[in-house]
């Protein structure tokens, strides 16, 4: 008893500090100083050609100024065609990608899938995520030729990696007892998923799907740069011809659509709880 109270008395009146993350003080300072030195050297190694920047300012200025007078009309037909193609690619790729992601997401959730299924599904997710969209698009353009088919396949493939992974993680974080209660009724596996798992992950699945639709639209604008169709192709052409006012018009359209999608997904997510 007295031993405890003397220990307490020595502590009373002393200050308390949160224990540092790295206990060894020399190691801690070495890491801090090393990090600082590397940062300085790294920044110093990036070359900046200031005279080139000065010349480029004009071009940048022209580009920005063209936003004040976007030209929707002189290439209106091209913009419209590109836009329609982009929307088709986006919607088709999102729908197909989401439909394929759901079974793969179920398989990639460790708490509901047996180990072999889990490993196969995780492998699919890993491959899809490892390959960046542009790389996949270049490959698919090489196989299927220029046009929207390559863009559609690329975005479907990318959607699978994104949505399956996040859906699987949401399933792994679900409330086990709710699902257990459904299992205890003697439900078969499909019923168990439908009653015990689906209601728990549905709002997140809808939210993620809307977000992916949004991403797919923006990606479809980039994919045109490598020949995979959509409004990106129109944008690329406008840049090549130095038609900044047309390019500005295209960018404004993209921004408008992304904002509209953002608003739509907000409305939908507020309704699904």
């Amino acid at each position: 008893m007295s031993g405890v109270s003397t220990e307490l008395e020595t502590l009373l009146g002393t200050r308390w500090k949160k224990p540092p993350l790295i206990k060894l003080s020399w190691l801690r300072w070495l890491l801090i100083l090393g990090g600082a030195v590397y940062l300085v050297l790294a920044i110093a190694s990036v070359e900046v050609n200031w005279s080139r920047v000065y010349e480029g300012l004009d071009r940048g200025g022209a580009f920005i100024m063209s936003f004040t007078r976007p030209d929707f009309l002189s290439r209106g037909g091209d913009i419209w065609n590109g836009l329609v193609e982009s929307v088709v690619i986006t919607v088709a790729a999102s729908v197909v990608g989401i439909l394929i992601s759901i079974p793969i997401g179920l398989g990639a959730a460790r708490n509901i899938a047996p180990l072999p299924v889990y490993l196969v599904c995780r492998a699919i997710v890993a491959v899809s995520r490892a390959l960046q969209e542009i790389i996949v698009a270049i490959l698919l353009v090489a196989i299927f030729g220029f046009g929207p088919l390559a863009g559609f396949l690329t975005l479907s493939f990318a959607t699978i990696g994104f949505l399956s992974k996040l859906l699987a993680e949401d399933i792994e974080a679900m409330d086990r007892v709710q699902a257990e209660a459904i299992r205890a009724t003697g439900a078969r596996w499909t019923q168990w998923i439908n009653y015990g798992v689906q209601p728990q992950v549905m709002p997140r699945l809808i939210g993620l799907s809307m977000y992916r639709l949004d991403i797919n639209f923006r990606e479809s604008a980039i994919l045109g740069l490598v020949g995979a169709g959509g409004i990106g192709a129109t944008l690329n052409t406008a840049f090549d011809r130095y038609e900044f006012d047309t390019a500005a018009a295209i960018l404004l359209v993209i921004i408008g659509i992304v904002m509209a999608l953002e608003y739509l997904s907000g409305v939908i997510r507020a309704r699904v709880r």
Partner: protein
Amino acid sequence: MLRLDKLVKTYRTGDQALKSVEIEVPIGQVVALIGPSGAGKSTLIRCINRLVEPSGGKVWLDDVELTALSSGALRRARRRMGMIFQEYALVERLTVMENVLSGRLGYVGFWRSLLRRFPQKDVDEAFRLLDRVGLLAMADKRADELSGGQRQRVGIARALIQNPALLLVDEPTASLDPKTSRQIMRLICELCAERGLAAIINIHDVALAQMFVQRVIGLKAGEIAFDGPPDALTPEVLTRIYGEEDWQATIKTDETAEEAVA
């Protein structure tokens, strides 16, 4: 009707939750299972319907050996065992009616359940049960809109619509206030009497258990430390189950206490 034969459960971590437990429950008997946290009460209940896979021993329900069943046969056997959970375990985003009807999943095909087209007699029975537990007006509410006591009533209706022979009840009152706890325990025991169901009820509240059940089993560190009528729960017995403490205030002392409650 229910017989546990040398039931053993060892978790992968090496914890021995159950050490050769032997229990026999006849038709229509309501048993309270008491014991300190970690004594293996939840594990025991879950080993019966194999939500937790036992590592040894046998479980018999009538003349079916549950521990030997394939997954399809196990699903059919689970229909005869209704389960009621601590924290209710309703699927919160489903309606009250869907939660109750989910008790029929073992009897209904996948497409019917997917489209929520349950047979009319199941729907009628669900309405009857909701009326019996006093929640008929709540049928279309979502489960997360209900209070704790209401949710547990839905949980009871879900278990009963399975038309079970046995109820497995895991801490039904742990998150409820004292009055609601008694109402829920009374409801469970009344329904068991009405339908001739056997029940195993895990419960922390010793006095509450004494009030309602016919038999008490005390579990300590995975072994049975007591098995007898509720009146035989003396301070010495409670000390054997839970360890040293002053038990006078916990247990019912004479018949008048029961009268006052009833």
